């Protein structure tokens, strides 16, 4: 019996200690529940962060494109159409109209951190007897590499581009039997061709992309694709990644361009994240509920077992409020102690899982983020759950008629 503890705390601790087997079981139950919640929450948060990081470093957050080319209906007069049915015209590769002006406008927007004009098109990469269709991206390395971190994906050579250089994917290098320093003949559909030197081989984490993606400087792409001075897209990165879609809408409304945000182009990814979050919330709610019922069940039994003790305590002048607090405290303590062990178990499981579970390329499946906030929240919630679960048994104990309780 600790001297500094009030009567209710002393009684609650002693009652839990006396029924220690029961206490041990329920604390273990709470701990397992909390461990599951901590483990799932931390792992899913890590996975989401990882996904977002991967998505955001491999593509621009907003891409500006030329407006769709539309066929104008033939009109014979006001409200009179020659052709009721309009066929969508084929979309020619066009440059963004007045792109330097748009780029300057984008650079002046405070929400945008990087702007890079790009020229993309298809071409053929030829080396000796083998040739492969490629997607050619002409970029300004200084700004583009801030948006898509090509330098992070380089596995051989370096992310250096001059007008005579090209960076290709690992699969394409394999297909063409090419390596760093080799020459590659790049031929456009128009027949224009350039011989470029491979300066870097990159692994973008996707086989299809590794087979097709190539990067050259903007001027090289412009001359190969026959669009001198033109760009097909302007790529942007933004300060607030989750505000990208509304910013894209603002840009599209104010400029003669189409603006696609990463949120729109990765809609499926967002749906998957949302579904994962929803199922996680459901699982957490049910685990918390089963923990609450477990605590309540143990305390209901405890009230029955201790009815004589409660009667004696009442006979010696214990108030109803004191009895109520004794049992509420027990619920809170079970939640609190269980959640401390649970947090430790969850963190341990997370460290273990992080160590053994790897992605196909050997990198970590999710970043190990053990946020203090998560543990504090888990402990607070478990303690509150314990208190709430104890309410019904505690009220029952407080309302016991001492005469009946003593008689048993």
């Amino acid at each position: 019996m600790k001297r500094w503890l009030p009567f209710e705390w002393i009684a609650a601790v002693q009652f839990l200690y006396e029924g220690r087997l029961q206490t041990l079981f329920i604390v273990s139950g709470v701990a397992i529940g909390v461990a599951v919640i901590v483990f799932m929450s931390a792992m899913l948060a890590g996975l989401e962060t990882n996904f977002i990081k991967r998505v955001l470093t491999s593509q621009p957050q907003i891409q500006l494109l030329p407006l769709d080319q539309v066929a104008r209906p033939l009109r014979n007069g006001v409200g009179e159409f020659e052709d009721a049915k309009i066929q969508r015209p084929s979309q020619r590769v066009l440059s963004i109209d007045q792109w330097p002006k748009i780029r300057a406008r984008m650079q002046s927007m405070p929400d945008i951190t990087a702007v890079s004009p790009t020229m993309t098109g298809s071409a053929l990469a030829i080396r000796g007897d083998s040739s492969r269709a490629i997607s050619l991206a002409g970029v300004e390395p200084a700004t583009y590499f801030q948006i898509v971190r090509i330098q992070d994906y380089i596995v051989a050579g370096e992310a250096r581009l001059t007008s005579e250089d090209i960076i290709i994917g690992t699969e394409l290098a394999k297909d063409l039997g090419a390596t760093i320093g080799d020459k590659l003949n790049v031929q456009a559909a128009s027949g224009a061709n350039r011989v470029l030197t491979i300066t870097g081989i990159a692994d973008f984490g996707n086989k299809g992309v590794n087979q097709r993606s190539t990067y050259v400087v903007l001027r090289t792409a412009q001359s190969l694709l026959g669009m001198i001075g033109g760009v097909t897209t302007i790529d942007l990165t933004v300060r607030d990644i989750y505000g990208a879609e509304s910013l894209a809408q603002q840009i599209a409304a104010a400029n003669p361009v189409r603006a696609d945000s990463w949120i729109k182009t990765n809609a499926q990814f967002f749906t998957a994240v949302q579904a994962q979050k929803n199922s996680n919330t459901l699982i957490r709610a049910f685990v918390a509920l089963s923990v609450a019922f477990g605590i309540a069940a143990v305390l209901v039994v405890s009230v029955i077992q201790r009815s004589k003790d409660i009667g004696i305590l009442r006979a010696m002048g214990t108030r109803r409020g004191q009895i109520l607090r004794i049992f509420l405290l027990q619920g809170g303590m079970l939640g609190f102690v269980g959640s401390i062990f649970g947090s430790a178990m969850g963190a341990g499981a997370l460290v273990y899982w992080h160590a053994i579970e790897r992605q196909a390329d050997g990198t970590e499946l999710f970043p190990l983020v053990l946020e203090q906030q998560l543990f504090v929240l888990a402990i607070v919630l478990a303690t509150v759950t314990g208190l709430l679960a104890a309410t019904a048994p505690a009220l029952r104990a407080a309302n016991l008629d001492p005469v009946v309780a003593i008689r048993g």
Partner: protein
Amino acid sequence: MADDIIKLEKVCKAYNIGRPSETEVLHDIDLSVRQGEFVALIGPSGSGKSTLLNIIGLLDKPTSGRLTIKGQDTSSLKEAEITRLRGHTIGFVFQYHYLISAFTALENVMMPMLVDRGFRSADMENRARDLLIRVGLEQVSGNLATNMSGGQQQRVAIARALAMNPDLILADEPTGNLDTKSADSVFGLMREFNQESGTSYLIVTHNMDLARRCDRIISVVDGRIEL
């Protein structure tokens, strides 16, 4: 009388009021216990002794009649006041000793003081220890109730009942479960405390030998006091 610790006037107690199974267990009880009196309450099983004891101990309420404790009418008191009055004025000793099994002998004796004051103090511990010495159980003060004999538990229960220095001890067959020797010693202990401190005792017993050693015998038969 001015020095009446408790006074019952026309106290009745009925159960299941208004139902076909209504039973009146106490009828017009008039009873008083004076300060320092050592009274035996006898009667056959089911005569209403325990109900009477519960009413006097403020654990139960009479259906009608008046209960006065130290001159204070209890009928108008609120529950919190009743609980307080019970804690300060009355000590209980039950037939089955009923120590709280989660606590040691010393802690059980300290319990009424702890309930009243909220925090444990050195004074409390000293008083509890003194009481245990008085009942001859100093050596088992650290034992849990489960590690004590019936006689020892009952002595601890007496020490606990005395902890708050009450005016009245209510004992419901305190020796009912003990062998003759232990019963005699427990009874002797209560008598000794009574003579020393002037605390009144109302003891329910079936043991006529012990009852005869009391100052007064009150007999309850069929819910009425027989003179």
